[in-house]
């Protein structure tokens, strides 16, 4: 027999969310979805579990190590619990919605499960809220994703937002132009990821000087773009850099106050991305609030015929850490016997009503016990404190 206290133990990385946080989380998610909806993004809802070979095909393979699997007793095939929703949305867009007009704007909110938490997020289950913009390679689409993320975060009250842009194909293009492959040089990739300039100069070979310059260029958007412009980048890398500049100009035009940084070599957290990417940070929050960027949608279902896409994902758990504590809802205690119409009237005025079920001697004390801010005395709410 498990003792009651032990029965409350949850597996590592899973937790109960209690009042008032649970309601607050739901409200934040709804406000984000409303911002997305107001800009033409329509909501879709994929299932929690899919067949492993479709969820983890193609670019989904990067999520393989994070994914829970289970056997489907019905089909006798392996199923996987989603560890990320972007690929599900891409699947919907390129299968059931393949005839919908492009560019296709979809939004989603749901929970994901991962086999292991990471350093900053021990949670194995958390919420993802985001959008995907599918079927366009336009720079305006990249800018729209960044601006929409900033607008949605501002709408829920995030302050001190800082957006870091990166271009995961820039460094590989520099290495490729010198006749090598960054993908095959894991020690060099690791050194770039650590920003270890000394190690990069040893491992970089002929590309070392330019990689070092890319590392040094990271910083506020304006200074990074100036530094990139001075480099004699190989044509493919120069195109990537120009694209970053183009998107920055579009973002600046629409939101001049937005804090933008550029890190030309950043590659972490971009498991399946292929073009301009971004990470969302905020003052006082130790990890990222979300990330997004360009990828190829539907590549796994019809190789070579994938569609250019971009989008972003916000993590609700990190997001809630960035927000001030929710304002308590006004709760009004209604002594037993209060007519239903009276209760409805106060609810209509924005109160949460808590009905007394039995007569009590001291309604005010009872209200306080039930965490009500006010008690209905006569026909007026009266503060209990």
């Amino acid at each position: 027999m498990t003792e009651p206290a032990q029965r409350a133990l949850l597996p590592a990385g899973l937790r109960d969310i209690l009042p008032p946080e649970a309601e607050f989380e739901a409200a934040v998610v709804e406000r984000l979805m409303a911002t997305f909806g107001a800009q033409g993004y329509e909501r879709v809802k994929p299932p929690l579990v899919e067949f492993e070979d479709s969820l983890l095909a193609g670019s989904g393979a990067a999520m393989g190590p994070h994914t829970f699997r289970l056997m489907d007793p019905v089909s006798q095939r392996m199923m996987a619990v989603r560890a990320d929703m972007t690929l599900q949305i891409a699947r919907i867009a390129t299968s059931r919605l393949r005839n919908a007009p492009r560019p296709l704007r979809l939004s989603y909110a749901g929970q994901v499960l991962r086999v292991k938490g990471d350093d900053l997020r021990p949670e194995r289950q958390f919420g993802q809220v985001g959008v995907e913009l599918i079927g366009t390679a336009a720079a305006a689409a990249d800018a729209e994703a960044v601006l929409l993320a900033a607008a949605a975060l501002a709408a829920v009250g995030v302050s001190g937002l800082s957006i870091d842009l990166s271009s995961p194909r820039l460094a590989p293009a520099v290495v490729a132009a010198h006749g090598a492959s960054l993908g095959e040089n894991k020690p060099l990739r690791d050194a770039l990821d650590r920003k270890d300039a000394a190690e990069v100069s040893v491992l970089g070979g002929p590309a070392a000087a330019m990689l070092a310059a890319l590392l040094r260029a990271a910083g506020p958007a304006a200074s990074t773009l100036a530094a990139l412009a001075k480099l004699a980048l190989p044509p493919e890398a120069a195109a990537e850099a120009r694209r970053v500049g183009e998107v920055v100009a579009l973002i600046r035009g629409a939101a001049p106050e937005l804090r933008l940084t550029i890190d030309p070599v950043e590659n972490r957290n971009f498991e399946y991305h292929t073009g301009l990417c971004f990470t969302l940070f905020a003052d006082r929050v130790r990890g990222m609030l979300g990330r997004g960027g360009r990828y190829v949608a539907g590549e796994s279902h019809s190789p070579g015929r994938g569609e250019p896409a971009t989008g972003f994902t916000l993590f609700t758990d990190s997001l809630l850490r960035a927000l001030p504590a929710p304002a308590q809802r006004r709760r009004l205690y209604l002594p037993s016997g209060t007519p239903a119409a009276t209760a409805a009237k106060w609810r209509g005025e924005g109160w949460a009503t808590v009905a007394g079920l039995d007569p009590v001697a001291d309604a005010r004390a009872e209200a306080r016990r039930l965490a009500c801010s006010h008690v209905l005395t006569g026909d007026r709410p009266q503060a209990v404190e």
Partner: protein
Amino acid sequence: MAANEKLVLALPQGRILAEVVPLLARAGIVPEPEFDAPATRQLRFATNHAGLDIIRTRSFDVATFVAFGAAQLGIAGNDVLMEFNFTELYAPLDLGIGRCRISVAEPADLIAHDDPVRWSHVRIATKYPKLTRRYFAARGVQAECVKLNGAVELAPALGLCRRIVDLVSTGATLRANGLVEIERIAEVTSRLIVNRAALKVRHEQVSPWIERIAAAARAARAA
């Protein structure tokens, strides 16, 4: 982590600190006098810069403080970085101090009839269980690690296990305990480490310190 809050630089206690302090002095960072008081119980120290404080912790904890953003900058050996493999850390600078290596060692009398190619499983006492498991897994050997926090060299003589993975600088401690270094896993030096979010969000404050310390490290090497 507001823009006007102080930056915190985490330093490791012990052996490396004696090399770190002169390097910081070259970079123009001087801690308050209490820092050098041998019996001090203080853990956080002001410096000659109003925007920079220093904390002193165990070397393994430096990486943890910085990875979680409790400190924005730190100095840690790459042995510690390899053990934790934190994704939230950047290690932009090799300071060239605290030079040593991390190695596998075993008793001298074991070497004669030991062929590492035949290993499928080894038991190893170490402060670095994750690094050790990864190193052996990469060559197809399962390492069962006994985690110790110090005096690792004692383990073979007392029969805890036959092999150890530990830091070696001169090799004197190994010799004194009848051990021989048989494989080098990696060269170790101290690195300047930076919290990922801090470098992005507080770039204007953090990056000048990286440049100053880099210049000081270059100057120290040239001297």
